[in-house]
Every structure is written in structure tokens, then in C-alpha cells.
């Protein structure tokens, strides 16, 4: 019940109060009957007539995790063994062993919030008492330094302003995870540097995350830094790809992620800052910066952040994470090396076979209509298109079977030079039939707003063991 470095409490019964609390004022006359020490958070002269220790900097209250006043703590041999909070006559009588204690008082009164957990004070207290636990190098600002400009000058930003990572903000961010600040999350390419939870938290602050997003950022980094995902190659390639993060599970709604209208766009803090924090870690810890290891010819705007949630609550198809072997109750992130999304429009479609046909026709054009088997894709099905599938009784597996069947392509259309297009497959494959995608090369996700017979496709990078493979990780609180 106490923090490291806590001031020692004397043996016996120790009480923490504040004058502004009505319950504390009510019990004040009783304290002289049993208390070995009384700590007052606000007024050193309260309660009157007894010796009081003024907890002027709230060090005692903060270190001993006082959340409510009054709190009575039983201390034996310098160690807390029990505590009670607020006023309950029966409880206080039992705790003190004084059978008639407060017999004239009402049986029950709730306590008040401790000043040490006052939202206006708690961040500063945490920084004052726990700031030294943070290991990161300190950057001292001169009086005239503009902290926002300094972050740009040091090369710490992605081109947009970042929230300055103060001790207060980073300690608050660390409240979002049960993991220790010095725990190693991953080894981040390309520089292959170990990143701690603390360093992730610093970059999450800069990205604009709330503490409850931090476990999602950590899970996404574990996935991105895996050998299977291969962020080194994703950075180094001249193709315009970056980590696309698809979030699944009930936690997506709990942290306020958007899976509906404009899910792939702007306007939602969780979507945007989780993806941004991951990219800031790749930049600042891994050293993956444009013009250095990042050799993209064009890049894409999603390399700032590309993160969204699957619309699960009314989806007629199995979710991405369940299709990848996770429980519907699990919170997961799936990372995919992807480019920007492209819209698939068909407002006349009313049957599932028609929909599969237009999906296939658009998916065939991915990167180059004549290149096959080299790239995966995410197909983001909008709710109105998904309804067409559901009306015909198609599930995810049926859709994928029908898509792959429509994407078996004649080699004669694909060989080098065919159709006046130089690229394609070697000439000896002229008489072969080749699939556009490998068997697990299409990932299906349900997301988007309720209006619009649209879907979206997100093209991938070189797939398989030599390229990047989608990776799913469970989010650990």
C-alpha cells in the first residue's frame, strides 16, 4: 500500500485528515483517544488541541497511497498491516478497540478525496516523488527556448508538432500499462535498439496519446518489430508502404476508436495517435527516417499514422482477429505493410456474386494488373457492401473462395510485353494460369460509415518470408 521511499510511519494508529473535509471535522474530537500520529494535509492547526504533523508537500499522503480522508492506518513494526477509510462507527470502534467511540455520531459518513489524488495536483506530485525513476536523458530548456521548435530542431518529429514530453506527462502515460517502465518491449530496426516501456511512453506522449492507448501502442510495436513483419525492409523499400494497424476487440470501443464513418480518415484521437506513436518510435528509437534508411520513392500520407478499428458490433462477417485464431473477447492489433487506401465503388450492386466480381476486378489492378503473387491486400468492406454479402448468405470464407476463383489469370495476359505493358511474368509462363494473390493474401476487414455502397483496398508490399507478413498481437493491459 505504499510507494518506494515512503516516509516511515510510527507504530500504532495513524490518521490522515484535512480541514476542508466535513467528515474529518466531525471525527476530529475522537482522534486524541487513540491516534499515535495525525497528519493534516491542509491546515497545520487542524485538529485543534492535539499534536499534528503538517503533510505540507503531501509526501506522506502520496507515498502511502491515501485516496480518501479520513484514513486510519494500523502500523506494526513500521509496516502497514490494515487501513480503514471514511467514517463507519462500527468499523472505527472495532479498529480502535474502543467500544463507545463516537456513539453520539451518525453510523456512517463517506470521506472526501485526498489532496494527493486531486486531479490538479497528482501529476506534479508524481513527478516530484517518482520523476527520478525515469531513466531517459533530460533535455534542459533555456529560458528563451520554444519547446515546440526545439523538438523540430532535434529531429524528433514526423513533420507535425508534438506534445512536449515532460516528466508529468510521461509518468501519467505510464499509468496506462501494468508493465514496468524499464521492461524491454522490442528491438527496433533499423538500428536494432532495445526500446523500453518508458521510451514508448515518451513517444506516445509526443504523438498525443491518452494513457489508455499505451497498451495498444506497445502491442503494435511488438508486432511491427517482429522478424515476420520486417519493418527494416518496409522502411528501406522504395515502395510507398508503412505499418497499417487494424485493431480488434471490445477494447477498441472502450478507448473510443472509430470503426465507422471516416474510420480511415482524420478526426479520432485514438486512431490517429496510436499509429503516430508507433511511427515516432520507429523514427526516434529505430532511426528509421526518410532520406536515410527510409528510401520510399513517394511514401504515402498513412506513414504519419494509419490505424483504425474493425466495425465488429454489426458485422455480418467473422472479424479479422477471429479469422486469425483469436477469441472475440481478445483485444488485438494486426499490422500490415500497406500503401494508402483506394475506393471500390459499385452503387448498383445487389448480389454477392456481382460484388465479388467488382472486388476482383479492382483487386487485379493492385500495383500493376500484370503482377501476380507478389503482394497481399486488405479489403475493407463497407457496411452497405457487407449487407449485400449477408443478404445472399455469404460469409468470409465464401467471399474469399469466390474472390480467388475470379483472380485466376491467364499467363498470356501477364507475360512481359503483353497488352503493351512491359512488366509482368516471364515469357515461359504464357500458357500457365496464375493467381493474383497467394491463398492467404487477402485480409478482409469490416469498417466504414452506414451510407455508401463503397469498400476500400489497401495494397501491400513484397509478401512472404523474404518480405513482410501480417502479424497479430494481443493487447496486454
Amino acid at each position, binding site marked *: 500500500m505504499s510507494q518506494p521511499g515512503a516516509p516511515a510511519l510510527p507504530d500504532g494508529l495513524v490518521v490522515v485528515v484535512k480541514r476542508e473535509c466535513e467528515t474529518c471535522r466531525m471525527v476530529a474530537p475522537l482522534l486524541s483517544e487513540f491516534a499515535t500520529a495525525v497528519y493534516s494535509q491542509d491546515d497545520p492547526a487542524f485538529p485543534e488541541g492535539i499534536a499534528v504533523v503538517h503533510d505540507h508537500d503531501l509526501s506522506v499522503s502520496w507515498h502511502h497511497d491515501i485516496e480518501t480522508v479520513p484514513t486510519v492506518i494500523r502500523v506494526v513494526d513500521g509496516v502497514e498491516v490494515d487501513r480503514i477509510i471514511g467514517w463507519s462507527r462500527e468499523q472505527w470502534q472495532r479498529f480502535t478497540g474502543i467500544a463507545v467511540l463516537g456513539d453520539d455520531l451518525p453510523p456512517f459518513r463517506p470521506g472526501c478525496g485526498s489532496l494527493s489524488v486531486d486531479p490538479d495536483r497528482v501529476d506534479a506530485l508524481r513527478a516530484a516523488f517518482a520523476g527520478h525513476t525515469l531513466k*531517459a536523458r*533530460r533535455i534542459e530548456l533555456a529560458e528563451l527556448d520554444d*519547446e515546440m521548435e526545439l523538438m523540430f530542431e532535434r529531429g524528433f518529429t514526423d513533420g507535425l508538432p508534438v506534445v512536449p514530453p515532460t516528466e508529468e506527462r510521461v509518468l501519467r502515460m505510464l499509468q496506462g500499462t501494468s508493465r514496468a517502465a524499464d521492461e524491454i518491449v522490442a528491438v*527496433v530496426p533499423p538500428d536494432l535498439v532495445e526500446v523500453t516501456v518508458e*521510451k514508448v511512453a515518451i513517444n506516445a506522449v509526443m504523438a498525443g496519446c491518452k494513457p489508455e492507448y499505451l497498451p495498444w501502442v506497445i502491442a503494435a510495436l511488438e508486432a511491427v518489430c517482429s522478424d515476420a513483419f520486417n519493418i527494416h525492409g518496409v522502411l528501406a523499400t522504395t515502395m510507398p508502404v508503412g505499418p497499417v494497424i487494424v485493431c480488434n476487440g471490445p477494447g477498441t470501443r472502450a478507448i473510443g476508436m472509430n470503426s465507422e464513418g471516416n474510420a480511415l480518415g482524420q478526426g479520432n484521437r485514438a486512431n490517429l495517435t496510436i499509429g503516430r506513436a508507433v511511427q515516432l518510435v520507429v523514427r526516434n528509437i529505430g532511426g528509421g527516417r526518410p532520406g536515410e534508411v527510409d528510401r520510399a520513392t513517394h511514401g504515402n500520407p498513412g506513414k504519419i499514422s494509419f490505424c483504425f478499428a474493425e466495425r465488429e458490433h454489426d458485422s455480418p462477417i467473422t472479424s479479422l482477429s477471429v479469422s486469425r485464431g483469436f477469441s472475440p473477447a481478445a483485444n488485438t492489433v494486426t499490422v500490415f505493410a500497406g500503401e494508402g487506401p483506394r475506393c471500390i465503388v459499385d452503387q448498383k450492386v445487389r448480389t454477392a456474386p456481382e460484388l465479388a466480381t467488382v472486388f476482383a476486378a479492382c483487386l487485379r489492378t493492385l500495383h500493376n494488373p500484370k503482377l501476380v503473387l507478389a503482394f497481399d491486400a486488405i479489403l475493407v468492406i463497407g457496411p452497405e457492401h457487407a449487407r449485400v454479402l449477408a443478404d445472399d448468405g455469404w460469409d468470409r470464407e465464401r467471399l474469399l473462395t469466390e474472390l480467388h476463383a475470379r483472380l485466376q489469370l491467364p499467363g498470356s495476359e501477364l507475360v512481359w510485353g503483353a497488352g503493351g505493358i512491359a512488366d509482368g511474368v516471364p515469357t515461359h509462363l504464357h500458357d500457365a494460369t496464375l493467381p493474383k494473390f497467394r491463398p492467404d493474401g487477402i485480409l478482409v476487414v469490416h469498417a466504414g460509415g452506414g451510407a455508401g455502397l463503397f469498400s476500400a483496398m489497401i495494397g501491400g508490399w513484397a509478401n512472404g518470408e523474404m518480405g513482410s507478413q501480417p502479424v497479430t498481437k494481443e493487447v496486454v493491459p
Partner: protein
Amino acid sequence: MTRTLLDPSSERSVLHRERLARPAQLRGQVVGLLDISKPRGDIYLDRLEELLVEAGAQVRRYKKPTFTKPAPVDLRHEIATQCTLVIEALAD
């Protein structure tokens, strides 16, 4: 009041590494040729090998499993222990 921020970077100290001195001659050197597994890298390296052998060097050939990932640590160690010089071929 001093304002303090936390460093978001890897805090890696930058070590300045001196290049090895240029060898006076190729004769007697063991030159590693590292193919990064991009198309046609081998054509370039084949020609380099001819020229190096003509100049009296001994040539050893190595190949990364894929150009998309850094060379495995064992391969780097092998090259470092077996060669006096190394040429890494880009390609396309």
C-alpha cells in the same frame, strides 16, 4: 523555472569510426564479394571477381539470404574473419 523534457531517442552515443587504410596493392589480399540477392548482382560481381583475380587477389563469394533484411550476424562474422577487404554489391 527550468523546464525539462525527456529525450525520446535511443540515446546512442555516436562513435566515430576510422576507415581502414587503403591497401597498397591487391596482390595477396582476400577480397569478400557480398551478393545482396538483388537481380543481376551476380553479373556485376562475376566481372569484379575476374578483375580482382587478374590483379592477384584471392576472392571469396558470399550471399545474403534476402536484400530486404540486414545480413545475418553469422555471415558478417564469417566475412570479417575470412577476408581482408569486402565489396558489397548493390544491383538492379
